[in-house]
């Protein structure tokens, strides 16, 4: 009984320390020193939120650069993937369909140049990035739809390519939302 009582007391003390004090102290400091990061790296335009730097969104029209496949349609109130096993027939069916869709929308670019990140579901369903090659192969389509010369789009992709971290870690990426924001600005000129 004495063991039970001290267990209860110590549990409540630790719940207060680790559950409340730790979390609130971290929140307070983070919000004071790094409010933009701590609030989700939101991108605002004229007081309206257009998204987050870190969260992908759906792009379907030919005039945008497209992100990765997302079985949840980039619904960021949740996250998820279909978790297809490599042997799952549905995965093959989807990959076949992606090939047909690609050829219909990008007649100038052969499949052999399309990297796999463009035709696979990301881990989160919210991947904000594609590979630089994944962006480059979309240039002919975007150029045709927007009238922006291909050379200018190539520069745009180049400028929005983030290198490996410290030149070493991870993969080079292109943030699709930021690229498309820049694209929209270029198109309005």
């Amino acid at each position: 009984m004495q063991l039970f009582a001290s267990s209860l007391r110590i549990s409540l003390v630790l719940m207060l320390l680790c559950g409340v004090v730790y979390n609130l102290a971290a929140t307070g400091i983070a919000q004071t020193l790094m409010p933009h990061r701590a609030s989700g790296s939101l991108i605002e335009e004229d007081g309206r939120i257009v998204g987050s730097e870190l969260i992908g969104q759906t792009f379907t029209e030919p005039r945008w650069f497209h992100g990765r496949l997302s079985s949840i349609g980039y619904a960021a109130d949740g996250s998820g993937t279909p978790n297809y096993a490599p042997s799952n027939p549905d995965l093959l069916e989807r990959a076949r369909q992606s090939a047909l869709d690609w050829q219909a929308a990008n007649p100038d670019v052969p499949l052999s140049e399309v990297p796999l990140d463009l035709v696979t579901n990301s881990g989160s369903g919210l991947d904000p990035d594609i590979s630089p090659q994944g962006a480059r192969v979309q240039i002919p389509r975007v150029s045709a739809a927007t009238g922006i010369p291909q050379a200018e789009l190539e520069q745009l992709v180049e400028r929005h390519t983030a290198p490996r971290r410290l030149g070493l870690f991870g993969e080079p990426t292109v943030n699709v939302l930021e690229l498309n924001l820049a694209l929209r600005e270029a198109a309005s000129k």
Partner: protein
Amino acid sequence: MMAGLSIAITLLLVLLLAKPAGLYLYRAYSLEPTGLDRVFGPAERLIYRLGGIRPGSQSWKAYAAALIVSNGVMLLLVYAVFRTQAYLPLNPSGIANMEPRLAFNTTISFMTNTNLQHYSGESGLSYLSQMIAIVFMMFVSPATGLCAAMAFMRGLAGKPMGHFFVDLVRSITRVLLPIAFVLALVFVALGVPQTLEPSAAAQTLEGGEQTIARGPVASLLAIKELGNNGGGHMGVNSAHPFENPDAISNLLQMLLMLLVPTALPFAYGKLVGNPKQGRVLFVSMALLFVVMLGVSLTAEQEANPAIAALGYDSGQGSMEGKETRFGVPQSALYSVVTTASETGAVNSMHDSFTPLGGMVPLMNMMLNTVFGGSGVGLMNVLLYALMAVFLSGLMVGRTPEFLGKKLEGREMKLIALTLLVQPALILLPTAAALYAYPDTISNPGYHGLTQALYEFTSSAANNGSGFEGLGDNTPFWNLSTGIVMYLGRYVSIITLLAVAGSLAAKKAVPETIGTFRTDSATFGAVFLGTVLIVGALTYFPSLVLGPIAEQLTLKP
């Protein structure tokens, strides 16, 4: 090339941190006064006073009883929070109370350091629950594991067992809380949210609506990795860009996961007064780790042959279920780290890995000796070490000794029992699930068997990662994995504390020329052989039926 270098640097950093961290752990739990008392003493004495604790040394039985009872009380408290979260404050998104069987599963999951998640964080838990239930348990659960390991090692070294509550408090004040706090702020700087504001509503470029879930993620993330917990704030865990924004946050997460598990062998060597004892175990485990990593990287580098055959540029490798910023190398590495350290965080979907790439995490969890989780990992390693000593003793016809104590019938019975429990907890329920609930399995064929096998392996090893296609929020899965997690955690803790208590009570026998030394490379080899033979005999058939069969049937 870059990938290889980045992996080598990651492992080098792990190596550099392990020894100093191990010596720090040794000092932090020292039964003698140390300089650390001056720093942490005042806060700790306050906690002891508030908690009504009188420090002193306990018998192994009192220590184990305190561990079980206190964890039981914590289970009840957190269960109550989950069941009433709708009525409690800090619930800006209006989340409902958790269903009883799901709450049963979730509570045990977090108390046992498993963090198997049958709910989705964004929609299943209020911010208050994330804080006072999830994060609270993410501290006390690894703290409990560390206590058990310290007591076990003290027993082996023939020292007093120590006091459970003192060890518990020290785990938090001296190890987990300070490191987690600093890292939480570093994670925010890298882009991880830390806010109590509700979800943000965005208007997308194409004119759609997007609700962006956020929350106090960074503080949870830091202790999730440091404590080898693994449960994510977000449903997809560290694959979510908020929970792992770039390759640097990814690197830090891996270093955090391996920090305590790789440090413990060095703490052990120091505690038993012979650093070589710890070093030989560290090197053996590191070898296993490197082999596993090699298999995983090789397997994942290959794109799915059926997809590659459609004519894509398949140079990126197996990208289904992986994030662009990590790519194949950092995803494969993370999967090996998270299962070696029994953390269970994921930055890519193991269910979508190539069959052999998915088999590596499974094997890590089955062996449960490639470093292993906070505290309990080393206990499991020492269990195999005792087994190796026993087998060697049998071969030369000598009573086996470990650290100068004779291993006799009583200890070996406890060890054999512990060794039998894990496969029973994995294989029997897997068979039951395949027979009775095939409808919960999402992928057809051999992979379906792997899904069920992975779920119970993860539960029994208290890892918590999953083949997440499994429809696991059902009464069957919630109750069965809940029971498996509980037994997987506490049976081995109690039996091994009993072994330590029994050894500590024995008189030391003097070392002679005939003593089988446990600090040599020979012993490392015998230890590895024991791990692999026991593991292979137990699990190989199930691996053949699952991932190996699937790999053989993948065709272009």
